[in-house]
């Protein structure tokens, strides 16, 4: 299964006698894609050096959504910083809150009660499904397929209804704070969640039928943007981008935090084409694998949610946190598995309520850095396929 290779046009521009068709020679152009562009997943600017339809090089320029979150972290107390973390990867706000809360709780030695931990995992996995649905829908939209987008967002509406019943917000929740979730789950939440899981799990197979094995989708994504496992590790990729290259690494399983060691689930990775119903053109580490890992992860998240429903105990959800939480003069670096990769927070305390430094390691920042390497000698149409498969959210690239 070969990676697709395109030849530069000038080699082929010879007429019948082997004379060079100088008139038809194309020249290199620098074309700007973004920051305002429907396919770049936010305010990403790509400067493409093209030779006809062939992109020789794509240089990403970022920073259009830089909102100085780290500087703000030096001026706000941790519980005030939670809404800022919402807006990093705004499609996975629960996961961001979770990561930051756990970092500060580790720093201050706060233990969250059992029920609070289960509620956090429930919200985190629901948000993972919601985020992957957006990724699924918008990836199809980038490639020109409109229907999966609407189906993905229809399922997402059920999840957002659950979130709204729990905390009142649909996108930026600030629900998981220092010491546990802000409020307990409302009446009927767990029953609604059970109904949603019964409704949603068969839908994943429907979406496979709709998009994943579609001939046009496979032709556009299989073999495109192949990243080898060594490159993926060297470039600091995490999340579905790393797992799509065959590296079976997931923080929830490999370095379990909180209560993730109590759940049984698998880590899907990219597999080569030809077996198990995988289209034959698929190469491990291509865009199709990264996309398919996300679909498989939705199934695993549903599995974790069912186990949470069985195991969740009664009791309080919040720990007792002092009115003014003084951070000790220590530092902690904590990473959590977000839908897009490993979100890391380095929180340095200095004895006062306000941290000395909050460093945010955004997974999309690290994932996007490989774009300049893999967008070489591909067609312009493949740029959308590659950037969409990396699934960046500019909120956590730029912070």
């Amino acid at each position, binding site marked *: 299964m070969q990676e697709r290779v395109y030849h530069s046009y000038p080699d082929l521009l010879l007429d019948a006698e082997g004379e060079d068709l100088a008139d038809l020679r194309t020249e290199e152009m620098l074309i700007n894609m973004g920051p305002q562009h429907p396919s770049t997943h936010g305010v990403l600017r790509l400067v493409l050096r093209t030779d006809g339809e062939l992109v020789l090089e794509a240089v990403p320029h970022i920073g259009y959504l830089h909102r100085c979150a780290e500087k703000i972290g030096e001026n706000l107390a941790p519980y005030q910083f939670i809404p800022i973390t919402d807006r990093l990867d705004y499609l996975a706000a629960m996961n961001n809150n979770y990561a930051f809360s756990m970092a500060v709780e580790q720093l201050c030695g706060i233990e969250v009660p059992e029920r609070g931990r289960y509620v956090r995992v429930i919200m985190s996995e629901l948000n993972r499904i919601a985020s992957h649905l957006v990724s699924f829908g918008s990836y199809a939209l980038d490639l020109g397929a409109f229907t999966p987008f609407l189906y993905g967002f229809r399922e997402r509406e059920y999840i957002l209804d659950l979130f709204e019943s729990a905390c009142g917000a649909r996108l930026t929740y600030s629900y998981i704070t220092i010491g546990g979730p802000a409020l307990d789950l409302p009446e009927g939440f767990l029953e609604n969640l059970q109904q949603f899981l019964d409704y949603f799990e068969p839908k994943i197979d429907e979406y496979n039928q709709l998009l994943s094995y579609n001939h046009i989708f496979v032709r556009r994504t299989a073999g495109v943007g192949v990243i080898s496992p060594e490159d993926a590790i*060297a470039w600091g990729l995490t999340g579905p981008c790393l797992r799509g290259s065959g590296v079976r690494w997931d923080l929830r399983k490999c370095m379990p935090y909180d209560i993730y060691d109590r759940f049984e689930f698998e880590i899907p990775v990219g597999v080569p084409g030809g077996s198990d119903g995988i289209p034959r053109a698929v190469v491990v580490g291509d865009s199709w694998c990264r996309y398919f890992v996300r679909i498989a992860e939705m199934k695993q998240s549903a599995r974790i949610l069912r186990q949470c429903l069985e195991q969740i105990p009664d009791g309080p959800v919040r720990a007792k*946190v002092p009115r003014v939480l003084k951070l000790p003069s220590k530092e902690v670096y904590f990473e959590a598995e977000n839908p897009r990769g490993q979100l890391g927070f380095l929180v340095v305390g200095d004895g006062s309520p306000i941290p000395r430094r909050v460093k945010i390691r955004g997974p999309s920042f690290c994932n996007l850095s490989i774009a300049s390497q893999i967008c070489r000698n591909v067609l312009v149409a493949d740029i959308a396929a590659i950037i969409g498969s990396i699934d960046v959210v500019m909120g956590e690239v730029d912070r």
Partner: protein
Amino acid sequence: MVAAKIAGVLRAQFPGLVLASDIDGLHPSLTLSPENWKEAAAFLRHDPRAGFNFLRCISSLDLYPEPFIELVYDLMALEPAGPGEPWRCAATVAIRLRVPRDGGSVPSVADIWPAAEWHEREAFDLMGVKFEGHPDHRRILCPDDWIGHPLRKDYQYPTEYDGIPAGPAPKTSVPETP
């Protein structure tokens, strides 16, 4: 425990390199001298006793009022397990380098860990640390004509940018947890 082993191996290989080690805290780290950083980084990456192939993050801390900026390189050693088994993390360590605030520079490790490319650009952009030998040494998040390095503790907030006036500098308040 593992960080202690790494410290021992580094001390044996490069005398005078390890200035301090804090391996019992929440964030096990070794403070190295920035002089032989390139060799130490290559050793950490390629030597089978270390094998740190994954650079998680490069953070920059401003130690104002001390005239130093500290760079923290978080490293992880990933290794495959059997077929179908999740990969393992053999070790994690944080390497700290102290660089002078004014004109401090450190060799770039972008050729050892390509992930460092963008992290070093960000450390330069926001904290002003220069990286010798970096393939693309320019600002990444701030506009190219920005003056100053925003994350420094003595950063002067600009009063205007491109003719657009900016508001007054923000104040810090002491908050209460609800």
